[in-house]
């Protein structure tokens, strides 16, 4: 018996590795008509892990002090061997992660995978979407550049439009009347400790829910596309005769992750300024407002909505209503039909929503 086999037998006898492999990998069956969109969740897990690892590496040299933060980032970019690569992977990675997250949500919408019994999967997914936006926003301040400083000033300022508690909330967020060293301390703590922990926990809940409900069957390539779950009792959606997760779909996941990495590295090496404007490389100056500070692309639609509506409170309300509608969609849309082409009203709403979001984002970018 080879050493490797003996080692495996030693571990297997004690913790039953073979049983886990059978149950979770080779014996974990997925629907036969599963498609590439189902890999987006695995890509997101990988992307989040990559952000955590690159973030940890950046922490080795980053100094969360308003006096030293900009210089420390400058040192990472220019003095630390491959520091530029780590920082760019982290900065570009936050953007690509949000793009994949949006695609993941859109595919879930299109395939009706949010429908019962998967309401909680959707809600936790939506919560993750919000948390990832939050972690991106708090990370934005870290380099303490003109872009960081003023984008944070603008973003935190919008909270002041909330009635009664607004001004107090702004002061609480900033740790003072204005964005300053206290804000950096708060955002840094949120970015590297609180939010990653919360995101990790919500991811665990999201995956737990997925394991308990089972993978949904895509509504494509089959006659009956209606949701079969009646809501009488708990039922795990198994897929007898399906394809095994390992090696079949694991290879598909691997292929998708490698393509994701190719895109990420393509941007890092050939379009390294994608996440930045020239103001990102100028130290923060509270006395000099740059001419055109705009939020990241995924906040542009929100930004433009607030600009075109007569007051900020109305803008916040409209966005709050839209986001709440999206968060609670599984409880609003109770129709059993899952195929997008058999849901014309829903499809029209989704397409309108996408066109509106893209249109507002482009308008916000050009304005």
């Amino acid at each position: 018996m080879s050493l490797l086999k003996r080692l495996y037998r030693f571990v297997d006898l004690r913790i039953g590795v073979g049983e886990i492999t059978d149950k979770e990998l080779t014996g974990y069956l997925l629907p036969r008509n599963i498609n590439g969109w189902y890999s987006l969740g695995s890509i997101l897990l990988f992307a989040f892990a990559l952000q955590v690892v690159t973030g940890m590496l950046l922490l080795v040299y980053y100094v969360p002090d308003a006096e030293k933060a900009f210089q420390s980032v400058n040192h990472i970019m220019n003095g630390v061997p491959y520091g530029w690569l780590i920082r760019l992977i982290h900065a570009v990675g936050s953007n690509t992660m949000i793009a994949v997250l949006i695609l993941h949500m859109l595919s879930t919408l299109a395939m009706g995978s949010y429908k019962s019994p998967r309401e909680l999967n959707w809600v936790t997914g939506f919560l993750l979407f919000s948390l990832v936006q939050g972690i991106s926003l708090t990370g934005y301040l870290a380099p303490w550049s003109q872009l960081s400083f003023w984008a944070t000033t603008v973003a935190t300022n919008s909270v002041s439009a909330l009635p009664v508690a607004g001004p107090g909330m702004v002061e609480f967020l900033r740790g003072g009347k204005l964005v300053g060293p206290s804000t950096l301390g708060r955002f840094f703590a949120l970015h590297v400790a609180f939010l990653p922990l919360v995101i990790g926990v919500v991811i665990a809940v999201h995956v737990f829910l997925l394991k308990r409900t089972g993978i949904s069957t895509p509504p494509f390539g089959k006659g009956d596309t209606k949701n079969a779950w009646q809501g009488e009792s708990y039922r795990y959606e198994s897929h007898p005769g399906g394809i095994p997760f390992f090696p079949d779909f694991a290879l598909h996941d691997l292929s998708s992750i490698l393509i994701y990495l190719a895109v990420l590295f393509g941007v890092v090496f050939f379009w390294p300024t994608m996440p930045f404007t020239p103001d990102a490389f100028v130290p923060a100056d509270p006395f000099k407002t740059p001419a055109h500070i705009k939020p990241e692309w995924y906040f542009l639609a929100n930004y433009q909505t607030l600009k075109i509506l007569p007051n900020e409170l109305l803008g916040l309300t409209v966005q709050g209503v839209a986001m709440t509608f999206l968060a609670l969609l599984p409880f609003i849309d109770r129709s059993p039909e899952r195929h997008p082409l058999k849901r014309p009203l829903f499809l029209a709403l989704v397409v309108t929503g996408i066109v509106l979001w893209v249109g507002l984002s482009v308008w916000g970018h050009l304005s």
Partner: protein
Amino acid sequence: MNMLRASTLILALLSLMLPAGSPCAQAPETVCIQCHGSLQDKLGAPVGLWRTSIHAENDISCNGCHGGDPKDAAYAMSPARGFIGVPSEVDTPGFCGRCHPGVLKDYLSSAHGKALGNGGPTCVTCHGNHDIVKATLSLINEKSCTRCHSFERARIIRDAMQGTEASIQGIGERIGGFQATGVDTERLAKGLFAVRNSFHSLFHEVNVTRVKSESSRINAELAKLDKDLRAIEDARERRKVAGAIVVAGLLAAAFLAHLLRKSFEKR
């Protein structure tokens, strides 16, 4: 109830993330500009001229040169608040030299400066008084110089300096380009600043031999900066080659994984 709490939490979280409003806040105008800007006569003309100037571009307002209180209309022109007003012809170089002491020194030692008070030009003769333009070689031109003397010698000086100015401008643009992409250009920018200052000190020099020898020295300094910039450019190119290899490798690996999956499907 729990869902209500969840949606409230989501709303609260979202409200924390929404960016808003116009980020661009213009600095309020000084009382000098508010008053003079509304005047149509010669007292209002400087405002329009100033708006096109290098001073306006760098936020140097009326009080930067003329003194006074730019926030208090009643005392804006009070000598007690440092108002100087318009300098006389002979006081003009000293007036500008408060902020440009190096240039003042160069000017005073030049043929132009030595003729101050005897029909020689002051700063505003060539640079303008309110529509002050950036100091470049274009200021040495036939139309301007022939107001006082022939253009012959000025042309030789300008031609000797022209290539150097183009190099300084080109290197400045390259440094700016790198700075805008996160490269630490502080040392290079300081080097260029020193070279540019040396070069500008020649702007008031009328000794052709000195202009030529100084231009050679400055060009040698510029060549060193150019070499450093080329090193950065080469590093960038190498990164792109490495990037192409990495991306191609990842795509090939993705394709292999895909083929492997297909082989399992057939099995």
